[in-house]
């Protein structure tokens, strides 16, 4: 197990008398004490991460009742997989069996207190508990629906727009946004708010269907219409009748399909392949793409008239890097509502917050899964840096910014980076003016000697190498001092 500390909930009505016990384990454990069932519930209902529960079976001393035995199941119902270690003076075999049947991870007798043995028992229980909890979380993640998580202003605006469109059930909607920003999630959100929610939302990824089959897949075909339609094909338009059709990657379809789609948008009719009859349908169309549709229109790859029809209402989902305030909310959602930061070491949270998430929400979800698997493999009780995917672990926001190709805004850089950049721009300028004659440059800039200038550049390169990794930066300095940069 990792060396970081464990959080334990100690449930015992005589907890104040156990101070020495808690002190003995205080090297590795932080304890919260619950002396009543109500207090226990408060802790378990809070977002706090617990790695272990220690439960004294003899709550309410003198009652002669092992109340603790009845608490094991409720604890596990609230926190599945959390190891519950019972502590008792009752050596009765039936008590042990009842505790085990209820799901206790271990059974410790007060008369057999031994720091080393108990520590080993706790660690073993925690290890097993983590395994169970992560399995539970992975299972939950696999079946988790796709809520539209986000509370930043642009997302709130988008939700409002979606709600408005949901009340106008024939208005097409165009959803733009990078890959993984949640276009299908937005479509589902609209569907959930719409009167059409009793009918299906059918998502179709247009780019995943071979062009030759796309028309039949969309509009259907009569039996024998082609080698692709040996029997009658209904097509997704008819499947979605009364509901919503999400046409993802709309920018990838060819002109023929574009015309048929335009026709549907104009008169709400489709004609299956091989048929001589039109079919009237009632469908709300949502088109989505990560591509720049206006640019495709300019290039003649996408019909202007279709674009005009689709873009009547357009939403653009912001990339996750532009709504970083939502990152904790998304983690919270995938972690099932617990105080998510407690499951991370502080450095991890720093890395996750700084990362630019090029794969957006989808990448975040995959990262959650990957972190849990690594936690499992590495037997960590919290997620530390070693559990992060490599690209996040090694992510350097300053380097990423400098290499993004964007015009550099000094305010986006840490202070020392900004000063170093200015210093090098200063030297670069002088090198250019003085045609790389180092003595002249040193004199011009007030250095004591050319060696001092060399030292300054070397130091800057050593401390801020990322400044020199940008393409076309400081060409004169690099040409003047090739020995530094080789």
């Amino acid at each position, binding site marked *: 197990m990792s060396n970081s500390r464990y959080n334990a909930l100690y449930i015992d009505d*005589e907890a*104040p*008398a*156990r*101070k*020495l*016990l808690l*002190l*003995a*384990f*205080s*090297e590795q454990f932080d304890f919260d004490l619950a002396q009543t069932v109500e207090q226990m519930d408060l802790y378990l209902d809070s977002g706090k991460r617990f790695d272990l529960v220690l439960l004294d079976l003899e709550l309410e*001393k*003198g009652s*002669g009742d092992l109340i603790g035995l009845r608490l094991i199941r409720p604890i596990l119902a609230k926190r599945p997989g959390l190891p519950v270690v019972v502590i008792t*003076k009752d050596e009765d075999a039936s008590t042990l069996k009842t505790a085990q049947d209820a799901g206790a991870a271990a059974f410790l007798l*007060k*008369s057999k*207190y031994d*720091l080393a043995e108990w520590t080993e028992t706790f660690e073993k229980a925690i290890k097993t508990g983590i395994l169970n909890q992560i399995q539970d979380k992975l299972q939950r993640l696999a079946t988790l629906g796709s809520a539209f998580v986000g509370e930043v202003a642009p997302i709130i605006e988008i939700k409002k727009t979606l709600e408005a469109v949901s009340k106008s059930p024939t208005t097409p909607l165009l959803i733009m946004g990078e890959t993984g920003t949640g276009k299908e999630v937005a479509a589902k959100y609209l569907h959930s708010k719409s009167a059409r929610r009793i009918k299906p939302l059918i998502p179709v990824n247009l780019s995943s269907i071979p062009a030759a089959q796309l028309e039949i897949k969309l509009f259907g075909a009569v039996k024998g219409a082609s080698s692709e339609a040996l029997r009658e094909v209904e097509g997704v338009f008819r499947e979605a009748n009364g509901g919503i059709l999400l046409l993802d990657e709309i920018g990838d379809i060819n002109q023929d399909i574009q015309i048929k789609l335009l026709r549907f948008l104009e008169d709400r009719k489709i004609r299956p392949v091989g048929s001589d009859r039109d079919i009237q349908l009632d469908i709300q169309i949502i088109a989505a793409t990560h591509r720049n549709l206006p640019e495709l229109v300019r290039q003649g790859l996408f019909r202007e008239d279709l674009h005009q029809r689709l873009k009547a209402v357009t939403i653009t989902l912001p990339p996750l890097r532009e709504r970083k305030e939502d990152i904790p909310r998304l983690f919270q959602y995938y972690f099932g509502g617990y105080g998510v930061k407690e499951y991370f070491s502080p450095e991890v949270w720093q890395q996750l917050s700084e990362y630019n998430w090029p794969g957006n929400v989808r990448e975040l979800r995959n990262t959650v899964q990957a972190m849990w698997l690594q936690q499992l493999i590495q037997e960590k009780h919290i997620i530390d840096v070693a559990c992060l995917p490599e690209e996040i672990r090694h992510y350097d926001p300053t380097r990423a910014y400098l290499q993004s190709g964007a015009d550099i805004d000094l305010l986006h850089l840490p202070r020392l980076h900004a000063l170093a950049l200015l210093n090098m721009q200063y030297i670069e300028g002088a090198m250019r003016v003085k045609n790389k004659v180092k003595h002249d440059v040193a004199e011009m800039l007030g250095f004591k000697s050319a060696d001092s200038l060399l030292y300054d550049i070397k130091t800057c390169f050593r401390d801020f190498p990322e400044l020199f990794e940008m393409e076309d930066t400081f060409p004169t300095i690099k040409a003047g001092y090739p020995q530094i940069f080789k």
Partner: protein
Amino acid sequence: MPEKKVLRWLADSENQIPEALRPWAAQQGFEWVAFQSGDTPAPVLLIFSPVWNGQQYLSIEGVWAKYLAKDYPDTQLIVVGNQDTQDTNFVDVLQIQERFAAILEAAPAAIRFATAMPVFTGGMDMGERMKRFLKGHGNESMAAICQEIYFNLSPGRDALKNQPHLVQRIIEAINDPSVKNNWGTLASRWINYQPFFGYLPFYTIFEEIRLLMECLRPWFEDSDASMENIEGWFSVVLPDLKRLESLLKKLEEYVQ
């Protein structure tokens, strides 16, 4: 000359009858010996019950019977009482001279009392009294309280050893009233019950318990834990508590 049969008898100090019977016993060829604590009760033990402890009459025969059945199963226990009751191990003190020979001849060994009880002599039942002392009145048993105090204190030894910088917190924890409350229960029960135990068979155990309670009392009652005595809490108090618990558990074996 044939060896005289030894008859050990136990009675309270105010009971004149055993001494009055000495000539009769000598005449019958018995060695008539007053039972002293530490004596082996075999081969025959007569108990003049109930006994007077200065305040009330106590029926001690039940406790003795269980003790002998466990530790001296071959010993003959004969209860000498004040009632006209027929039992193989009982004789009415008024009939002792006439009936004793027959009783002695027929009385089964004490192993009988593993599953039976002797004739009850009408005083305060010390079997019940012992149970109440050891088990409490529906509350925690003495051994359990002792174990609880031990459980509360003993981790302090590990804490002090592994994290000596916590010494002040360890001292504060020992001085927490909840630890002393448990001691209070233990001590008051001992004080309340101890006067009844004088004629019971566990003299050495009770004496050791008395000494342990005397040794432990000042730690819990007279002074708080401090930098000066912290080591003693773990090197003196803990072993004493452990021993006390084991003695109490030993007593529990006789009073089920």
